[in-house]
C-alpha cells in the first residue's frame, strides 16, 4: 500500500491559453465565495471581529478569497512582464467578484431564506456593505479587482519582502482572532498589562494594536531572514558535541515552557490541551495500525470505548459498578481489555485487505456501539443513560480534579506512549509492519508471520486507545454510548493523515490543528467537520505526505520523485529515438 500520489498524467495534460486559465480561476474562486456564503460561514464569521470596528473575520475571509484569485493567477507565471501579470490578477479578481456578486443580486431579487437558512438579511447587509444593492455590488466588484491586483502583485515581490508582509498579516489576524484567549493571559500579570492596554480594548484588538503587531512581526522576520545564514554558518562551524548540546538545550527550554504554559493559561486552555492530548494518544495508536502497518481501521473508536467503559465499570459509584478500584488499578485492566478487544477485532479481518478492511472494521465498530446502546446490554452497561459518577484519580491525598492536572496526567501518558511507539517503530516488529504495509505477499515470503504481526498491530494500537479511553472516563466523570460514534474514528484518521502518516510529531501537530483549533474557536463548532473534510481532501491532493512527514517518508518520496524523473527522462528519450 502506498499513499504517494503521482499527479495523474493522461487527463490533466490539456493545454489551455492563459486568459482561459484566468477566467476559469476567477469563476472557480467566485463559486467558492458563493459556497462560503450559502453554507453560512461568511455570516457566522462576520460576527467575530478581528480589529474592533474596522474588520470582521467575515470580511477578512471574503478578502482572502479574492486575494487568492490574484495569487493563483500570479504564481502560475503566465506572462513574462509584470504589468501583464498585474492585469491578469486584476481580471481574475474582477471575474471572481462578479460571479460572487450573483449571490447578493439573487438575494435582493427573491427571498431564499425559506430554503437556505443562512441567507438572512444580516448576510445581505454584510455583502452590500449596508448600502443599496447597486452601490454595494459595485463595491464588491471593485474590492475583488483591487484584491486580485494585490494578490498578483504579492507573487511578483521578491521573497525578502513577501515573507515579512504575509507573516505580519497572519500574526495580526491571529492576535485578533484569539483575543478572548490572549487577553486574560496578558491582563493577568502586572508585567504584561501595559502590552495588553497597547494592543487591546475591552472589545478586542485595536487598529493601533494590529499595526503594532504587523510591524513587529514583519521586522522580526526580516531580521531573522537576514541573519539566518550567518547563524547557520556559525552553528555549523561549532564542534559536533557543542551543537548537540545547544540543540538539546533548545528542546529542553521548549518543553519546559510548554509544561508551564497550561498552569498559567487557566482551565479552559487546560481542557483544550487535555482533549488534544487524548487525541494524540489515540492518534499514536492508530498510527501504528495505519501509518506503519498499513491496516486501515475505521472502527478504532471501539477500543476507546472499551477503555472508558472498563474504567467506568471498575471505578464508578453506580449500580453498574463491578468493583470500586482506584484509577491506578483500573487503568491497566482497561488497557489490557482494549488489547484483547483489538485482537478479537483483528482475527476476523485478517484476510480482508485494503478498502474492504476499512469497511469491515467500520462495521465492527458500529456493531460495538449498537450493542452498547441497546436495551439488551443495558443491565450490564447502562444503555443510553451511560455510567455516571466515576471518581477522579487520586495520588495519596491529592485529587487530580481539574483539567490542568488531568492534562499533566495525559502528558505523562503521551510521553510514555510516544517513547513506546518510537521504539516499536524502530524494532524488528516495526520493520515487519512496514514490510507488510509495502507488500504483504513479499513480506510473507520473507518469513514474516502475517497473523502474529497483524494481530500485534491491532492489539498494541488498541492499547493506546484504551489508555486514552481510561483517562476520558475520569475526565468526564460519566460515559455515554453517544461519546463513541464513528466520527471519533474518522477524526483520528483525519488527524494522522493531516499530520503525516507514520510520523509521531505529525500526530501531535495534526491533533493541535484538527482538535485544538476547533475547540478554541468553539462558536464555529458547526463548521469544524466541514473544515475536517476539506483538510483531508486538500492534504490528500496537495501534500499527501502530511504537514510533518516522518524522515523515512521524506526519503521515500525523494526516491520516488527521482525514479519518476528517470522514467520520464527515459520516456522522452524513447520518444526522441522513435
Amino acid at each position, binding site marked *: *500500500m*502506498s*499513499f*504517494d*500520489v503521482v*499527479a*495523474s*498524467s493522461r*487527463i*490533466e495534460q490539456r493545454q489551455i491559453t492563459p486568459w482561459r486559465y484566468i477566467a476559469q480561476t476567477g469563476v472557480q474562486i467566485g463559486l467558492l465565495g458563493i*459556497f462560503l456564503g*450559502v*453554507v*453560512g*460561514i461568511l455570516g457566522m464569521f462576520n460576527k467575530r471581529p478581528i480589529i474592533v470596528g474596522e474588520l470582521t473575520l467575515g470580511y477578512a475571509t471574503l478578502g482572502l478569497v479574492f486575494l487568492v484569485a490574484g495569487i493563483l493567477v500570479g504564481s502560475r507565471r503566465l506572462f513574462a512582464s509584470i504589468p501583464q501579470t498585474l492585469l491578469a490578477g486584476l481580471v481574475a479578481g474582477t471575474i471572481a467578484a462578479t460571479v460572487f456578486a450573483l449571490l447578493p443580486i439573487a438575494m435582493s431579487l427573491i427571498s431564499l431564506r425559506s*430554503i*437556505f*437558512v*443562512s441567507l438572512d438579511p444580516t448576510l445581505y447587509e454584510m455583502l452590500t456593505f449596508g448600502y443599496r444593492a447597486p452601490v454595494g455590488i459595485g463595491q464588491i466588484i471593485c474590492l475583488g479587482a483591487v484584491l486580485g491586483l494585490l494578490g498578483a502583485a504579492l507573487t511578483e515581490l521578491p521573497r525578502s519582502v513577501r515573507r515579512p508582509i504575509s507573516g505580519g498579516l497572519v500574526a495580526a489576524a491571529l492576535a485578533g482572532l484569539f483575543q478572548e484567549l490572549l487577553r486574560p493571559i496578558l491582563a493577568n500579570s502586572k508585567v504584561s498589562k501595559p502590552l495588553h492596554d497597547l494592543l487591546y480594548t475591552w472589545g478586542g484588538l485595536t487598529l493601533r494594536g494590529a499595526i503594532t503587531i504587523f510591524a513587529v512581526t514583519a521586522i522580526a522576520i526580516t531580521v531573522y531572514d537576514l541573519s539566518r545564514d550567518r547563524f547557520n554558518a556559525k552553528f555549523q562551524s561549532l564542534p559536533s558535541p557543542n551543537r548537540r548540546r545547544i540543540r538539546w538545550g533548545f528542546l529542553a527550554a521548549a518543553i519546559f515552557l510548554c509544561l508551564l504554559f497550561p498552569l498559567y493559561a487557566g482551565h479552559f486552555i487546560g481542557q483544550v490541551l487535555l482533549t488534544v492530548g487524548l487525541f494524540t494518544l489515540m492518534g499514536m495508536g492508530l498510527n501504528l495500525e495505519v501509518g506503519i502497518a498499513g491496516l*486501515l481501521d475505521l472502527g478504532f473508536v471501539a477500543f476507546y470505548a472499551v477503555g472508558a467503559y472498563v474504567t467506568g465499570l471498575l471505578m464508578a459509584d453506580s449500580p453498574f459498578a463491578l468493583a470500586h478500584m482506584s484509577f491506578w488499578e483500573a487503568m491497566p485492566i482497561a488497557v489490557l481489555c482494549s488489547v484483547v478487544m483489538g485482537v478479537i477485532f483483528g*482475527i*476476523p*479481518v*485478517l484476510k*480482508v*485487505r*485494503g*478498502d*474492504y*478492511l*476499512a*469497511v*469491515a472494521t467500520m*462495521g*465492527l465498530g*458500529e*456493531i460495538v456501539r*449498537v*450493542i452498547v*446502546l*441497546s*436495551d*439488551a446490554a443495558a443491565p450490564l452497561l447502562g444503555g443510553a443513560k451511560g455510567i455516571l459518577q466515576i471518581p477522579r484519580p487520586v495520588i495519596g491525598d491529592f485529587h487530580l480534579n481539574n483539567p490542568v492536572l488531568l492534562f499533566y496526567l495525559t502528558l505523562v501518558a503521551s510521553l510514555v506512549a510516544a517513547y513506546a511507539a518510537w521504539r516499536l517503530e524502530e524494532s524488528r516488529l516495526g520493520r515487519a509492519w512496514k514490510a507488510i504495509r509495502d507488500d*504483504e505477499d513479499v513480506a510473507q515470503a520473507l518469513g514474516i508471520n502475517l*497473523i502474529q504481526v497483524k494481530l500485534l498491530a491491532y492489539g498494541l494500537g488498541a492499547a493506546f486507545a484504551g489508555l486514552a479511553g481510561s483517562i476520558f472516563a475520569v475526565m468526564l466523570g460519566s460515559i455515554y454510548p453517544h461519546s463513541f460514534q464513528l466520527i471519533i474514528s*474518522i477524526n483520528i*484518521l*483525519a488527524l494522522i493523515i493531516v499530520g503525516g502518516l507514520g510520523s509521531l510529531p505529525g500526530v501531535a501537530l495534526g491533533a493541535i490543528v484538527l482538535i485544538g483549533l476547533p475547540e478554541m474557536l468553539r462558536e464555529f463548532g*458547526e*463548521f469544524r*467537520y*466541514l473544515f*475536517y*473534510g*476539506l483538510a*483531508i*481532501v486538500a492534504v*490528500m*491532493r496537495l501534500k*499527501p505526505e502530511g504537514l510533518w512527514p516522518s524522515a523515512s517518508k521524506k526519503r521515500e518520496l525523494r526516491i520516488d520523485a527521482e525514479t519518476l524523473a528517470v522514467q520520464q527522462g527515459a520516456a522522452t528519450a524513447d520518444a526522441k529515438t522513435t
Partner: protein
Amino acid sequence: MTAIEKAGVKARIPQIFGSLHKFTYVEAVLWLVRISVVAVVILGTIGTLIKGTYSSSQWFAFFTFGLTIGGVYALIALGYTMVYGILRLINFAHGDITMTGAFSAFFLARSFDRSGFLDAYPVTSMVAIMLLSMAVCTVTALVVERICYRPFRHVASLAPLICAIGASFVIQHTFRGMFGNTVRSYPDPEWMKGTIELAGFSIAIVQLIVFGMAITAMLVLYLIVQKTKMGTAMRAVSEDRDAAALMGIDSNKVIIFTFVLGACMAGIGGVLYCFVYKQIYFFSGFLPGIKAFSAAVLGGIGNIPGAMLGGVFLGIVESMGPPLFLDGIGIPAPYQLRDLIAFTMLVLVLVFRPQGLLGEALAKKRA
C-alpha cells in the same frame, strides 16, 4: 472464464488439504464465529416459532416492509457496484450523494404539498421530484469524481478512499450549513396513505408505490446497460479497461456515464427512502449508504444483478431478522438491533464469502 474457474478449483484442492493439517487458532476462532451465528439463527427461529409472538399477518407485514426497503437499498447499491465494476473503487461518499438529492427534492415536495399540487397531480409531481433529485445527485457525484477520484485514477493506493471520506464530510456539512440541522418531515400525501387488501393480507400503498418504482428504475437501468451502445461500452471497460481503450472506447466518458447512472439511481432511491421513513436531515445518507454498500458486497460487488438481489435480500433479513432470530433467544427490544444485522452481515460476507452471492472474486491484490 471457465478456464479460470477450473484453475481456481484446482488451486483450491491443495489449499483445503493444507488447511487441515495447519488448523491454526485463527481458523478455530473463525469456525467459532460461524457456528455461533448459525446457532443464533436456528435457536432464535425455533424459539420465536414456539413462542408464537407474531401472527402470520405480522410476518407478512415484516416481509413486505423488508421487500420495500430492500428495493431502495438495491437502487443505492447499484451506484456502488457500477463504480466498483469500472474503477475498482469504493465510492465512500455515495450515501451522502443520495442524501443531497433527497434533501434538495424535499423543498420541491414541500412546496408541491403546500400548494395542493402533490395531491392533485400525483404522477407529474412525483416525476418532477425524482428529476430534481436525480439532477442534484448527478451534479454532486460528478463534482466528487472530478475532485476526489480523477486525480488518483492511475494510482493504486488508499488515497481515493480517504479523499472520499473527506468528501462525505464536506457534503454532509455543506448541506447542514445550507439547509439547517433540523430533521425535516417529508410530505405525506393522501394517496399514499391506506392499505390494499390482497388475498387476505393487507399491503400499505406506499410500499407498493415504492417497490414498483424501484423495480421500474432497475429495469430501465438493466436495459440501458444491456441494450445501449454506452451500456455495452460500460461493460467492456469494466471487463478490461486497456482493451476497451484499444477498441476506441473513451474510458473517461464511460466513467462519467457510470457515475451519472449511479447517481440517478441514488436520486430515485433517496427520495423513495424518504417517502418510506418520512424524514430527512443532513446525516440521513450514512445509514442507507452503508447498508446499500453491504447489499452490494452481499450480492457480489461489481455485479449489477447481484446488487439488486443483495439489496432485496438485505432488506428482508433486516426486517424479519430481529423478530425471527433475536426475539426467540430472549433479547429485549430486538428492533433496536436492526442495524446490527446489517453490519454483522457486512462483516460476515467480507470475511467468509468476499465474492458475495453471485459475484466475481474480490481483487485481492488491490491493497
